[in-house]
């Protein structure tokens, strides 16, 4: 496209060309700084992106409103960055990080989340105009959620740049959608807050030992594992052969304990208490006469579940059920279940009265 720019605009464009490598370099510096800062603060975002305005785009801007700018320094979006967050609360956290990293030009920055009237909905984003030490030009950082970003992109693509007058119905529908997405953003944040509250409550209950009050689920089981509930049994088993204990994830036992009827962490604690002696007997029988001097930390729960199943009449079928969950369904599990039944049939716990 051929553009006609006056001498003033051509001078700004020339200044841009001369400083383009500097803009590219600062872009990478700011991008790295933002990413590492957010990462360090534990703020997980959908993306951090950056671009230096293309020459054609700047020329178009100058053609339209070049007289507004006295020099390139007046144009604040030559370098633009965008941080897209998952949660609406995180937009303010990102903003706070940006405020610590750069000098924010508050006169030029705008919080578009606050410009809407109580009965209007639309573009929601936080725009900061920033300065970085040693760089004479300002740059823009936009911060918004993925939903706000989706709305802004769709609105931009389908309306703003189409060059035709936008029908009222379209504007009304986009406005309705903006309102809906605003509510969705709030709901996502509320769900996250409630989930975090739940996790804190579970942690407190587990730490205080009120295990009967804690329902068994992924979060509560993970918390429970952090207390090393199988460590005592594992150490006792390892001592049989002075074995090394190799720590492995025990999360795979969650469906096993659920399958055995455990509904709370208290049920697992009871299962451990009631079956530890039997589990130890299995371990002694299996490895006591071998020279195996390494066991995994799953040995305790494995023998506990085995003992629980056998003592409750689950037999071979019950053991195969456990092995199918742990190892994935396979005919080998049938053979292993038969092996376990054979090995344990004469152990004292199998003949002890309750």
């Amino acid at each position, binding site marked *: 496209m051929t553009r006609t720019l006056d001498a003033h605009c051509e001078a700004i464009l020339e200044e841009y060309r001369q400083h383009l490598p500097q803009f590219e370099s600062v872009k990478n510096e700011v991008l790295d700084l933002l990413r590492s800062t957010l990462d360090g603060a534990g703020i997980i975002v959908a993306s951090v992106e950056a671009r230096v305005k293309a020459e054609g785009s700047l020329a178009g801007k100058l053609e339209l409103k070049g007289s507004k700018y006295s020099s390139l320094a007046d144009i604040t979006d030559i370098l633009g960055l965008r941080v897209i967050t998952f949660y609406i609360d995180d937009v303010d956290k990102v903003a706070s990080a940006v405020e610590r990293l750069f000098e924010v030009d508050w006169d030029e920055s705008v919080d578009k989340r606050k410009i809407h009237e109580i009965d209007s909905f639309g573009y929601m984003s936080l725009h900061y105009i920033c300065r970085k030490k040693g760089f004479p030009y300002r740059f823009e950082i936009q911060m918004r959620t993925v939903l706000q970003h989706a709305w802004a992109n769709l609105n931009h693509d389908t309306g703003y740049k189409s060059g035709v007058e936008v029908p009222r119905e379209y504007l009304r529908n986009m406005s309705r959608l903006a309102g809906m997405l605003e509510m969705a953003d709030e709901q996502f944040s509320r769900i996250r807050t409630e989930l975090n509250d739940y996790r804190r409550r579970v942690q407190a209950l587990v730490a205080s030992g009120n295990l009967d009050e804690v329902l068994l689920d992924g979060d509560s089981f993970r918390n429970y594992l952090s207390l090393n509930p199988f460590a005592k049994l594992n150490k006792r088993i390892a001592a049989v052969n002075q*074995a090394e204990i*190799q720590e*492995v994830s025990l999360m*795979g036992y969650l469906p096993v304990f659920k399958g055995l009827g455990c509904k709370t962490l208290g049920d697992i604690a009871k299962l451990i208490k009631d079956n530890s002696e039997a589990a130890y007997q299995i371990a002694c029988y*299996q*490895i006591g006469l*071998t*020279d*195996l*001097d*390494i*066991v*995994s*930390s*799953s*040995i305790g729960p*494995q023998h506990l579940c085995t003992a629980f199943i056998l003592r409750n009449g689950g037999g071979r079928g019950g053991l195969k059920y456990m092995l199918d969950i*742990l*190892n*994935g369904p*396979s*005919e*080998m599990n049938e*053979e*292993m279940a038969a*092996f376990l039944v054979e090995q344990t049939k004469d152990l004292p716990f199998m003949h002890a009265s309750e």
Partner: protein
Amino acid sequence: MEVKINQVEKVITAQFIGRLDTPASLEVSRQVQPLIDHADLTVVLDCSQMEYISSSGLRIFLTIRKAASARGGRVIIRNMNEDIRKVFMMTGFLNLFEVEKA
């Protein structure tokens, strides 16, 4: 103990022949180095001709598994005989691996 290593595209297979006992394990841990180096691939540990595995052998398998976990690879133990499978179960390591019969 003999270890034969063969790579076909994204699958690297080690065939263990004989007894993986403590005396053999030092040499075997050197021989399986290509599996550690290629732990981002699918690593198949073919045990169809393995007669025995000791704790030292288990440690070698665990080292390979750890390398694969760290690099996004996958470890499959194929054709363990029943005795070896029992060793894996008695030590609590069976469910750490994908186990296949041919």
